[in-house]
């Protein structure tokens, strides 16, 4: 069902947690659907310096969350915004058809976090 990479990211998820001093936070999904992803990140000079996730959801939800944090860490905001849910799925060696829609929202969560950061910044 799941690729080896998915299993790897599920078993040893990277960047689990919450950053207290985050300057951007994003959350997508809801418990009713069975998937929630929360991303917290630290942006400095347009670069994602640190990022962590917390996820309630299936194997695919956990793995995509872990994967996306790896993919955007150290990247510019522009680069991060170019990473989509399907790029993440690809990087994981694909996801089962049934998981492509509901559980593959990690990139969305990152985008929401970046927008949160940008919104906060523009208010300052």
């Amino acid at each position: 069902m799941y690729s080896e990479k998915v299993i790897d990211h599920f078993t040893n998820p990277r960047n689990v947690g919450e950053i207290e001093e985050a300057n951007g936070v994003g959350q997508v999904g809801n418990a009713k659907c069975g998937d929630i992803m929360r991303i917290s990140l630290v942006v400095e000079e347009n670069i994602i310096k640190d990022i962590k996730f917390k996820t309630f959801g299936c194997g695919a939800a956990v793995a995509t969350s872990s994967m996306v944090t790896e993919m955007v860490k150290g990247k510019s905001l522009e680069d991060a915004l170019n990473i989509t849910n399907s790029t993440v799925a690809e990087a994981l060696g694909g996801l089962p058809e049934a998981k492509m829609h509901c559980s593959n929202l990690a990139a969305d969560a990152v985008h929401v976090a970046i927008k949160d950061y940008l919104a906060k910044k523009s208010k300052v």
Partner: protein
Amino acid sequence: MRRIYLDHSATTPVDPQVAELMMKYYVEFYGNPSSVHLYGREVRKALDEARTQVATLIGADQAEITFTSGGTEADNIAIQGAAKSRAKKGKHLITSAIEHHAVLDTCKYLAKNGYDLTILPVDEEGLVSVDELKKAIRPDTILVSIMHANNEVGSIQPIEEIGKITKELDILFHVDAVQSLGKCPIDVKAMNIDLLTISSHKIYGPKGVGALYIRKGVRISPLMFGGAQERKIRSGTENAPGIIGFGKACELSGQRMKSEIPYLTGLRDKLIDGIMSRIDNVKLNGPRGQKRLSNNVNVSINFIEGESLLLSLDMIGVAASSGSACTSGSLDPSHVLLAMGMSHEVAHGSLRLSLGKQNTDEDIEFVLEELPKIVDRLRVMSPLYNKTSC
């Protein structure tokens, strides 16, 4: 790696004795039971014996057993067949909210095609109320379909009480006993059951075989047409090796039942008690004690999601199942848990561990050792945990 199978409600391994017997009928006694010649007759004889073995386990006569391709087909023949053959008497059907999809979706199909359907609610333990049923009955009610034991939460329904009511009012009573066969005593006569569905692969028999008990005198229209096998109710060359295997599995199940029920009940309660004491924020789904199937454990573990729990267990060799939507390809979690009043959120975190005759005390201890660690790990990852819990 140690492998522990705790998904016996999904399916069971075939008993080696059963498989060996089947082999003979695949390779050596392979005739078509409809044939006149010896190859046919030797199989016909074995089929008759299997029919008696199955009938014996549920207190029926052998002429009342119709073999099918499984529980799903038996449910469909019972419900579609009864609806069709009784349509002139009335068009109202009653079932419950926690039936297997083979019953529920068949009833819903009929509801879209000219029949009226009442779906009875259940209480928070997953039990149908006999009073609710009584209230739902109308003059045009032709069929009541209520399962014996629920496949997800193991709740055992008041079948005998319902049977008395339907018998008195001359309403057909169908019981899906797929999960209770071999785990609860079944006596179709004493229970006043008209139609009873059973399935082979849940009792260490082969997949792809089931049976419908049809009480003598009850007329049922067939779903399929053809060679008129099984007294015209189920056409198609008989799956003779499968049926013979099912017969044997019923015989063995009947022999084991007396010792198996207390054995499984012991393991079950050890597992339930262990989980409840070692993990916080966890809820047992379904009743405790006598009203619970001897082999069923179902818990909701808050703040985590079922599939990731299953995956984590799978990685340490433990096979289980969940009512999470993610395990079924649908969007909603288990209709059974929702019908019991559970929130979507909690239903997503349900875990079913269903025991079988090969499971041991050590299996349970292993799970009790490992499960808390997995729950901890997943809760650390969960955005719901820190927020909501103590």
